[in-house]
């Protein structure tokens, strides 16, 4: 069976084609094409601009994907698209494209939950059977474990997503959004050495990131590190606010932090929070495997920290690279095809999209 998947819940437009051989052997990726809408430094992507980007690219990408997979329209069994969660306007433009293809080609539609797409793709690529899943991206932050036909959310963010926190700090520092703000923060953080004190907000199984963002934005302003890099060649004289907390005595802050130090501190703090909640979920469900999915899951420091934690629990961490971690079309095709095989269909009348679609709303019929 062959499915084409359309994904466009945020600034990436992805088209993927997935083959599930009829003999039950390993599914194959026939095409995985992505085009990203990149906004200028210091700015985020606006829904209307992103939607326009998706509308102008979707046909090109579908054509290219079919060509790359050496398929004709007749070979495709179903069209899978992201039903939610995500940004309204981009979701809509992709849902319209999916409906159009469905009518044009006479193929059935399958609406897919974006989060479930990530989980299923991660499971397929890494071969982990029943892991605790950490789903971290620009719009979502969830610790998930599977139990009786649902992906249950054990912990999640109480406010903004972890990727959103990173992206917005990249805007504060006017770091480039190409290829991704989080990627550029990760590179800058490698040069950081000092840890500045930031709030650490784990509440039970849940995390909160907005206060951390406000705190580090405040630090960037205090030290004159915000804005474009050339503008801060001569930073204004400031009084180091961090020293007032007494951290100096512990040797945490010795000199004025740099931009790299702030990126480093932000990553260390928020990733520690994620690893801590994941560890709690693992202890709770008695699992030793972790699967990291979502755009932030590409971050090698996060993978490293998670690896140390999993190792100490006698387990291991599974992560994928940017082809599968970052939003893509094949994950929608993969999850859609699994549902399609169990008889799931999305009639044209119900082929809507929604900004809010909880991971645990999906009935996972294809797992035991």
């Amino acid at each position, binding site marked *: 069976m062959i499915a084409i998947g359309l994904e466009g819940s945020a600034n990436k437009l992805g088209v993927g084609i997935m083959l599930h051989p009829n003999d039950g052997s390993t599914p194959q990726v026939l095409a995985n094409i992505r085009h990203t809408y990149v906004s200028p430094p210091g700015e985020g992507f606006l829904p209307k601009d992103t939607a326009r980007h998706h509308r102008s690219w979707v046909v090109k990408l579908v054509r290219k994907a079919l060509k790359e997979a050496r398929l004709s329209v007749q070979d495709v069994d179903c069209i899978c698209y992201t039903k939610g*969660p995500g940004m309204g306007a981009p979701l809509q433009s992709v849902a319209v494209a999916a409906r159009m293809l469905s009518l044009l080609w006479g193929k059935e539609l399958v609406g897919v939950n974006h989060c479930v797409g990530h989980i299923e793709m991660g499971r397929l690529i*890494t071969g982990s059977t029943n892991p605790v899943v950490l789903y971290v991206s620009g719009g979502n932050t969830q610790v998930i474990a599977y139990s009786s036909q649902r992906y249950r*959310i054990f912990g999640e963010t109480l406010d903004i997503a972890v990727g959103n926190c990173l992206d917005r700090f990249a805007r504060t520092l006017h770091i480039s959004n190409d290829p991704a703000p989080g990627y550029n923060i990760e590179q800058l953080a490698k040069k950081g050495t000092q*840890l500045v*004190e930031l709030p*650490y907000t784990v509440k*039970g199984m849940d995390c909160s990131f907005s206060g951390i963002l406000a705190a580090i934005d405040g630090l960037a302003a205090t030290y004159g590190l915000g804005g474009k890099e050339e503008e801060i060649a001569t930073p204004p004289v400031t009084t180091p606010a961090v020293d007032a907390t007494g951290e100096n005595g*512990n*040797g*945490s802050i010795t000199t004025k932090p740099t931009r790299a130090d702030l990126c480093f501190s932000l990553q*260390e*703090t928020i990733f*520690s929070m994620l*690893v*801590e909640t994941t*560890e*709690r979920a*693992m*202890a*709770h469900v008695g699992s*030793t495997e972790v699967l990291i999915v979502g755009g932030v899951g590409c971050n090698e420091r996060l993978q*490293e*920290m*998670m*690896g*140390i*934690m999993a*190792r*100490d*629990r*006698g*387990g*291991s*961490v*599974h992560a994928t690279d940017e082809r599968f971690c970052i939003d893509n079309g094949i994950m929608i095709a993969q999850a859609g095809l699994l549902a399609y095989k169990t008889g799931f269909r999305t009639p044209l009348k119900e082929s809507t999209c929604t900004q*809010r*679609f*909880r991971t645990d709303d999906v009935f996972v019929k294809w797992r035991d």
Partner: protein
Amino acid sequence: MAPPTTYTPPPLPTPFNNTHPAPTLLTQGAEARLYKTTHLTPTTPAALKVRPSKPYRHPILDRRLTRQRILQEARCLAKLVREGVPVPALLALDWEGQGAGNAHGGESGIGGAWLLMEWIDGLVVRVVLERWERLVRAEGRISGVEEERVRDFMRRIGNSVGALHRAGVVHGDLTTSNLILRPASPGTAEAEEEDGRVDMDGEVVLIDFGLAAQSAQDEDRAVDLYVLERAFGSTHPHTEQFFEEVLKGYRESFKAAATALKRLEDVRMRGRKRSMIG
């Protein structure tokens, strides 16, 4: 991917790596490990809670968090003992986990920060209720005397939780595994099941204040009660019908209990997770 390796727990912090008999590991959670050891004399048992350092964290952040959390727990325990709430007494602690004048190795918290507490004899309430439920199922009915006994027991649970809240502390993780029934006469707890009766006399002691906080807000108190209620529902289905007795015991234990119980109704309606629809 790295193959799964067998887990070897890190060594105990000094001086516990050197005691005879060696501390025995009781449970291992995500945050801490609990040992049984001795204090002052070889025959005085004590509970040792070790918070090992987390190697994935930046050392400065790790030290800050471990220190914060162990002190938080210690402050809550000290306050509760002072207020006469049935909790284990705090005996000693080290938030650095290095002992005084540790010469070898400057790395932070090699063995981990630790907290030494009074040993509470007795069974956890979860086990007491499980035994009782097994007995009831075997007999097929609950006699009037038995029912009164279990109701009284539930009221005492409520009293203990009420005393905790009256002292201005919320537990954060109230389950039946975090309550111990300290028998009125020592040494009877283990031998109970043979005579066909489960001992429910004694004092209900609260343990594990790892997630506790100082708070006098109705919301926090109500969440504590809600967590306990859910724990009863999921682990003791036959005893759930008597949960109202816990609330009754709670209500009569302090003045502000009434408003906390009112808030509990809101918390029940809300559940733990808000729906993301609309």
